[in-house]
């Protein structure tokens, strides 16, 4: 699990692991899987709140629970930068990890695929594959998005690619 900072690691271990291996097309088992996903997300969120480290809001965008939308944010220099977050559960889930998208940052950084899908570290995929089907959405957020934000947002802010919403508002106006 090298490649992640100690806080991430400790957080990850506290997220409960999932047991049911089922994709969106598996019907009832998928529902079971979805329940586990929710439980894991609840634990993760509670944990974050307790540690004063709340950084995202998501909710299922369709009843099947195959599309999720929400927001995520990062605090840099006492300023809170907030971005939209959306992703689909792939058909091959949970063998394939969901591709997290930050559409607002599309084209602003090279660590991103077209359509705002973030580039994850080389360590992510093998780890995910190894832990299939135990890892779920909560794990993907914790291992994927949180480190990406911590690494990329300061760079983007400093380079001026991303502006605070107050500034952004003014710049939009301009």
């Amino acid at each position, binding site marked *: 699990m090298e490649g992640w900072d100690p806080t991430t690691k400790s957080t990850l271990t506290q997220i409960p692991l999932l047991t049911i291996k089922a994709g969106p097309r598996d019907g*009832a088992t998928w*529902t079971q899987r*979805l*329940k586990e996903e*929710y*439980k894991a*997300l*609840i634990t993760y*969120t*509670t944990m*974050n*709140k*307790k*540690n*004063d*480290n*709340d950084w995202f*809001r998501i*909710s*299922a965008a369709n009843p099947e*629970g195959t599309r999720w939308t929400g927001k995520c944010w990062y605090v840099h220099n006492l300023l809170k930068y907030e971005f939209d977050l959306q992703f689909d559960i792939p058909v091959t889930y949970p063998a394939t990890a969901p591709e997290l998208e930050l559409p607002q940052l599309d084209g602003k950084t090279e660590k991103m695929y077209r359509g705002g899908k973030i580039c994850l570290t080389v360590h992510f995929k093998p780890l995910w594959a190894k832990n299939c089907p135990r890892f779920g959405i909560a794990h993907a957020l914790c291992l994927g998005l949180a480190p990406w934000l911590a690494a990329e947002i300061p760079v983007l802010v400093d380079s001026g690619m991303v502006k605070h919403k107050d500034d952004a508002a003014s710049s939009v106006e301009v």
Partner: protein
Amino acid sequence: MDDELLELQRQFEFAQQAKSSVCLSERNVVELVQKLHQLEIIDFDLLHTVTGKEYITPEQLKNEILAEIKKLGRVSLIDLADITGVDLYHVEKQAQDVVSSDKTLMLINGEIISNLFWDTAAEEINERLQECSQIALAEIAAQLQVGSELIVTVLEPRLGTLVKARLEGGQLYTPAYVERVNSMVRGAARGICLPINLLALWNTLQSLLQEMNGAGGVAVESSFFQSLFNGAVKDGEILGSLRAGVQWTPLVFATAQKECVDALFSQGSFISYDALHKLGITQPLQFLQSRYAEGIPLDTVFAHPSIVEMLDAAMEDAIERESWIDALSVLPPAFASQDASKILSTCPSVQTAIKSNKVVVFGDSYVFSSGFVKSLFDLLEKEMDTLNVSSFALKSDDQNNLGDDSSNLSDSNDAGNDSTSSKQVSDKTSRKKKGKSAGGAKMASIESGLDYQENVPSRSKKNQKKGKNSNSLQERDSKSVSKRDNDGPKGDSSSIISEEWLVKKLLMLIPDIEEQGIDDPETILLPLANHLRPMLLNILRERKKAAFTENAQKIKRLLDSIQRKLDESSLNIQLYEKALDLLEEDQSTSVLLHKHLLRTTATPLVDFLLLNMDMHNKLKNGIQIDESQNVESVLLSSGERVDLAKSFQGPLAAKAIALVEASEGKSVETFMTALRAMAEESGLMLKKLDKKLERTLLHSYRKDLTAQVAAEKDPVSLLPKVVSLLYVQIYGKALQAPGRAISVAVSHLKEKLDDSAFKTLTDYQSATVTLLSLMSAATGDEEDCTSDRISTKREFLETLMPALKSLVLGTQQS
């Protein structure tokens, strides 16, 4: 199903809606605290833990420390630092604060210990004590992990209250135990009746205790016993006296000892140190002197003055009776001879008597009144008279054997004395050695108190009393030897009166010595003999001196006579020797003449010389000689002569033997040289014949001879005299010719005489020869014609005699 999912969705929603708790970072907090300090809102030292994550106020630290102390009553500072997580420095500081503010706490060796802890510890100890009766402090200290000194200081105030025990020599004992040991000590001490070293007693008690306690029993310090014992002594539970801390003498023993000594001393008026040693008194003299101030300390006994009084009375009696007494016979048998001598010295009557020379003390205990000694001396003196003669003979033999050269006729007394004295010294020392060994043998035989060795100092003491400055027997001996050296030959007399002889005589004179039943009378007689001997020797010496002066005159006379005779004879011999020259040619006649001369003249001379020398020797040695003895009349055989010559000493003997041999030889000359040598050796003068002397001698000889011829009646003996006279007249030489040489001598006269005279001579001579031959032939036969012929011949000769006489006398006249 969906409900559940929905419920989960709602829950998730709710969780996301929930308010997030707000947390400050560490850095922020540190900054905040710093700020508070800066603003002086926190106005005291804020401490932090060693991890650096926590702040702690001193007050809190103090409270924590106190809480820790309360838990066990005892906590180490290092442990505190670990527990509170605060640096040791701050912990120590706070601990000191805590301890100083609370009197029940103490800080010892990095530990805070409360009184409460000690109380509980003391209770524990007490409980254990009740079980074990005794505990060593070291054990407690090891258990509590504190110093034993600390234990002592802590326990002492609690002894008797919390800890019901007694502390003794690093051990805690319960009162019951102490009482038990105390009883043991008391019992043992009361049981002891003899003086004892307490340490030994403690050892036995210790082993006893160990047996009682079994193998696991703890050794009890002997100091514990000792303190219990001292307490008992102080309380009067045990009676006795303690010396040097460990030597215990029970009162019962001391009392018994005292009573015993008192009884002994009052019974016998004396007490021997041996007896006191048996009673266990190690220093009897001090003991007795402190108890009986008036007593007299002696070498082996301690005497009451009454003993002295008794002895004094006996001594006085003996002195008055002019007798002798053995102090030991008066004293109790426990007295040794040294004691006797000592007590005698305290005896007033003896002292005064010694001062006034009325008494002599011999050995250690024998007191002789001087009257008694005097009478003994007189008796011995008489005894000596009988002794003298025999001893002289004995001594002279002795001296000759030893080769003493006192036969020198000259006054070589000095040299002679030296040799005699040296001989005496050797003689004396050898005798002394003998005496010593004899004394050693005796020593073994008289071990019953009369030690010979002990006599030596006392005897020397006696000498001092007599005013002799010699301190030891040895010195005295050497002195006497040297004195004898000076006395010279007179010292010999000491060997005559030997100690043994004296002792024998004394035994005869004092028969009651044997009656006394003394084992070895010599012990008393030897010193007595030694005392008497010098006096007797003096007497003897004086006598000998007198004899010597007498002898000296005799010697002088004798020497004179010897000289005279020697002169006379030697001159005669020389005179006759000259006449021999005339007949030198005829060998046989010469020899004959020589022999004749030696026989007739020299031999008597030799005899006289030898006899007189012998006599001189004797005189010189102080031997009385009967002067009436006629020396000259004695004629000796050759054997006797040789013996006598051999009896002389040294070179003189050789010379004398040579002389004797020469006198039996054939040559007058060799005899003369021998004679000269002998004379030289013995210091006599041998006169040389000179012309004047020869003439006077010849003249007197001639006169003598003429008178003899004139008076001669015997025709046979007339012839040689006539011939000799003729020789004197014609040759001026004195011829001594034997009968056989007469014819030669006569023929020698032929030329000198005229024919008629010569004829008369030859006729006479032939007639004499025939007469003599007839006479010799007639001796064996019976009465026959020869006797007639002899008588006729004799008559014939007698007729011739006047002619012959006239021949000589006539020529003399012409």
